[in-house]
């Protein structure tokens, strides 16, 4: 990665300006979430003490404060409540407009406001089904000893069920 005109940044990577969460175990204890994504699973943490299922996944249960948590699978298909299409102001890294989002009822677990991909403008409507879609994002060049290792990453959006 190079930054034209700023010679001192040549070849450097700025984690503080990264779009996506760090996914290596050195920088994120929620690494299993991303490992599960690679398997097509949408997961979160459930408290073994009180049974609360939280999202985002946690280190500590926000209901009973136990740290005895387990990973569980959540549905990967949900129902669209409503759709928005952003024509102006799409952040760098999210493609050309429109950037489509939908409020999705994930089978009663939560309503997620998520990015919709593989979808044309005007195509998605209330009541439609969408499913989890996992894609690769740019790897992180991470220093391991004297070496720089590229840590692969994935992330998720949802796409129409066709």
């Amino acid at each position, binding site marked *: 990665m190079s930054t034209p005109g700023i010679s001192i940044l040549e070849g450097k990577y700025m984690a503080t300006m990264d779009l996506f969460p760090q996914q290596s175990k050195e920088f994120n204890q929620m690494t299993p979430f991303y490992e599960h994504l690679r398997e097509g699973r949408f997961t979160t943490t459930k408290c073994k003490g009180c049974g609360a299922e939280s999202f*985002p996944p946690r280190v500590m249960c926000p209901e009973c404060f136990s740290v005895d948590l387990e990973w569980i699978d959540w549905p990967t298909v949900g129902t669209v409540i*409503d759709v*928005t299409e*952003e*024509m102006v102001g*799409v952040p760098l*890294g999210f493609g050309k407009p429109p950037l489509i989002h939908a409020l999705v009822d994930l089978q009663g677990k939560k309503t997620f*406001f998520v*990015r919709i991909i593989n979808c044309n403008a005007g195509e998605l409507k209330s009541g439609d089904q969408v499913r989890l879609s996992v894609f690769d994002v740019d790897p992180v060049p991470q220093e391991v000893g004297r070496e720089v290792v590229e840590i692969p990453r994935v992330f998720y959006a949802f796409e129409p069920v066709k």
Partner: protein
Amino acid sequence: MDRKVCVVAGGMSKWGVRDGSQRDFFQEAAKACYDDNPLMDPKDIDGLLVASAYTERTSYQTHLAPLVAEYAGIKPKNICARVELLCASGSSAIILAYAMIKSGQADIVMVAGGEKLYTPQKWEVFYSELASVDHDWDSSQGLGLPPPVFAMVAKQHMKQYGTKKEHLAAVTVKNRRNSALNPKAQFQNAVTMEEVMSGRMIVPPLTLYDCCPITDGAAAVVLAVEEKAKEMTNKPLVYVMGTGQASVNNMSANMPNWTTWEALKIAGAQAYAKSKVSPDEINVAMTHDCFTISEIIEMEDLGFCKKGEGGVFVGDGQNDFGGKIPTNTDGGLLGCGHPFGGTGIRQGIEVMKQLRGDAIQQVPNATFGLTHNLSGFIAAHTVLIYGKEVR
């Protein structure tokens, strides 16, 4: 002894797409604040709270408060720190200054807030906004300071309550008319209903005119304990009466309700109870019109009209001069712009002037005023109530 807290001075820099740096704007705001009250000696200020959200990102400057103190020509001895709650940073700092003075930890505290948001390459503005909501779980879906979120709120409010696009537009027409008379505001021209209705689409149903702009600028107020305030000004005293700040969720998936803002109702109830003032008694309000739909929902959830009737309420001009609750009389965010840390302070300045009786557009006999900010993914709400008396 119960210590009462007054606002004794306030001023702001010109807001807009400005030539200059963050520290330039803080000096302009301090100067305007000092000029507002020539009887005050700034050297008496014993505390400084600075509100700025993007200082590290767009000015690459942390440890901001001592820098502002140095430039503002003051030497705080009881507090000198920065407060950050994104769009509500300024009002949060006023709450903390109030608490410090009320508790006796300080006597005279300046609260200054502002931002330099425009960078030499404009893409960076939208990119930086990805720091504003839950980075790992919402920003990574492409949500920054998100028009899509408020477009979704507007769509749901329209669906549930029959709110119309014309209702949204009425908020802009009012606030831009007010900002056109405010020389410090970003927008110096009024807009017609026809212009607003045919504006460039940002995220349907929100057009360009439904969204507040990105803004450079700063603002400052000085709060003082009543005994000193009486000696510091010959203008009517304006008191901070009560405050509330609530958060019930952060990530979008945990938002309890998109069209009734639970945290706003909690923060409002706290502020009303502590002030011993009811919504019916408020004479003037500055509410967080980051998007037009926000002002409509705020009318409802602050108790100025019934739930679901916000659209008709603003359509009838009940939030305008001569209506039930004149709102954003200086132009609001839609007209003045929104340098995050500055906004709550700008609101406080306008309420101070309304209660003193020297506002540019004066609400007759205003006795009680309210300010409100929302911040993040509608994730926190901040309410302050000011009055010419305390109860």
